[in-house]
């Protein structure tokens, strides 16, 4: 087995700007207030993912999950350390995949597929499957700006799962879909997992992470909090104590954002 993702001491620093305009900055400076803060969204993170592993990425809001996925997918580069991947990457970075609101669903579909690296021929072959998976019907001819966030996610997910990728990333994709679509996605992701591709799946839902993943990485303010067995990770996160004594059901799968 080959390594699929290798992160070594990866650090990503963000600058939070409190003021933007010249006037605001001058006023804040004059009063001795800080105009910006730097912090590490990902802080000295190292891990290795083997080919074919399915990794659950968990952590509280703001712990750096999306930032990490953006670095794996190549949108952002680490400020320090190195992050290397093997093979083609596809997936959804947060619900929706960069659609142009004025263009129709089908035009966006074609563009999106091209950005994910599909060739014209590959797309021709898979077009009907994608359309069927998205299940949007006539809506595909309407501008994407009029779609609900769930419908956008459908379209994005449908394109992403049809790309022949070696690494599949999914960032809270299921959070906005309706139940039938969610189970369809879960099935598709399991299929991806079982085909031996590497999967990185961000979710807050313990039930779906346990079903999907063989290993969980927990981020805590950008640092590695836990890395190991899903059950132990969920226990570590204290996600296994239902608040109102409720049982966890499929119903709750990815119900949260």
């Amino acid at each position, binding site marked *: *087995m*080959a*390594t*699929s993702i*290798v992160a070594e001491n990866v650090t990503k620093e*963000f600058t939070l700007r409190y003021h933007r305009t010249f006037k605001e900055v001058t006023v804040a400076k004059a009063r001795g207030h800080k105009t910006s803060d730097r912090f590490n969204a990902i802080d000295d993170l190292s891990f290795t993912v083997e*080919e074919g592993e399915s990794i659950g990425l968990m952590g509280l809001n703001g712990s750096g999950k999306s930032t990490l996925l*953006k*670095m*794996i*997918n*190549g*949108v*952002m*580069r680490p400020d320090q350390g*190195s*992050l*290397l*991947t*093997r*093979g*083609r*990457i596809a997936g959804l*970075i*947060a619900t*929706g*995949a*960069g*659609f*142009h609101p*004025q*263009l129709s669903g089908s*035009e966006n579909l*074609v*563009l*999106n597929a*091209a*950005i*994910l*690296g599909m*060739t*014209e021929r590959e797309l021709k072959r898979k077009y009907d499957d994608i359309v069927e998976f998205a299940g949007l019907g006539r809506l595909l001819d309407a*501008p994407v700006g009029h779609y609900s966030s769930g419908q956008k996610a459908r379209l994005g997910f449908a394109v992403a799962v049809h790309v*022949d*990728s*070696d690494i599949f990333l999914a960032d809270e994709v299921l959070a906005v879909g309706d139940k039938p679509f969610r189970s369809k996605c879960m099935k598709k992701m399991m299929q991806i997992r079982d085909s031996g591709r590497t999967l990185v799946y961000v979710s807050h839902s313990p039930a779906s992470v346990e079903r999907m993943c063989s290993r969980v990485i927990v981020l805590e303010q950008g640092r590695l909090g836990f890395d190991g067995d899903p059950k132990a990770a969920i226990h570590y996160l204290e996600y296994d104590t239902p608040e109102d004594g409720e049982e966890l059901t499929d119903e709750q799968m990815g119900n949260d954002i």
Partner: protein
Amino acid sequence: MTDVAVPVAEKPLRSPAPASGLLSVLRQRYLLRLLVQREISARYQGSFLGLLWSYINPLTQFFIYWFVIGFLFQMHKDVPHYPIHLFAALIIVHFFTETFVAGTRSIMRNKALVVKMAMPREMFPVATMLVSLYHVGPQMVILVVVCVLSGWTPDPVGMLCLALALLIIAAIGLSGALLFSAANVFFRDFGNIVNVLTNFVRFGVPMMYPYVIVHDRFGRFADLYLLNPLADAVVLFQRAFWVGTVPDADRVRIEQHYGGPMMPDHLITHGVLALLGCLVILAFSQWVFTRLENKIPERL
């Protein structure tokens, strides 16, 4: 893109960041073509006249200038076929300002794509430049029709000048678009700076006035005027079209009147040098863009 038929284990472990730079844009021609098509269809989405607008806009400008400068200021008398002189220049100026202004906004406008998808971000300024070039088409059709009616026939030197003019504008327009589109992400002020800059463009090129005046006023410093690549492109473009419509008698008359040549000497040499200069500027812009690019997704 990597071939999926190859087992993963045989693929190299590498940085997932997309190859960037203008050359990698050229390698992804299919995506570039889609972006250009998208841009063109999005611009006229929901408009009844559609592509006709790309004729209407330059035509109205043309008539306004023609009326004010030509009719009110009586430039017609000095410059033979003044409307052609003006319109030819207008096409070039338009090509440049469209590329520069729309290109500067291109990355901001495609924010959704830039922050989520890994692709060379030079794609957006390049696509904008190609969209502007696409709009040059209809305008040149009008120009050629008018020129043919005025007795113009194509000549090889003229066609060389035409190619040089378009290449110069493509290179310098793209340089501006690259530099300012990246800068605009950090401070939106750059979008406004561009608007101010484009106000000067019209006056820095022989559009409302003929080149021969420049020669008359600046004398031997006329060569300095030609350091502006936009002026070179306009003169080259006029050489390609307008000059062919001017009868020899008229040419001799104005050259005697102003005591200078109607077109600069060594025009082709000037054009080639200007193009080389623009390519150097383009390389510099690419260098700056690469420096800024890393921070673009997080600043959007």
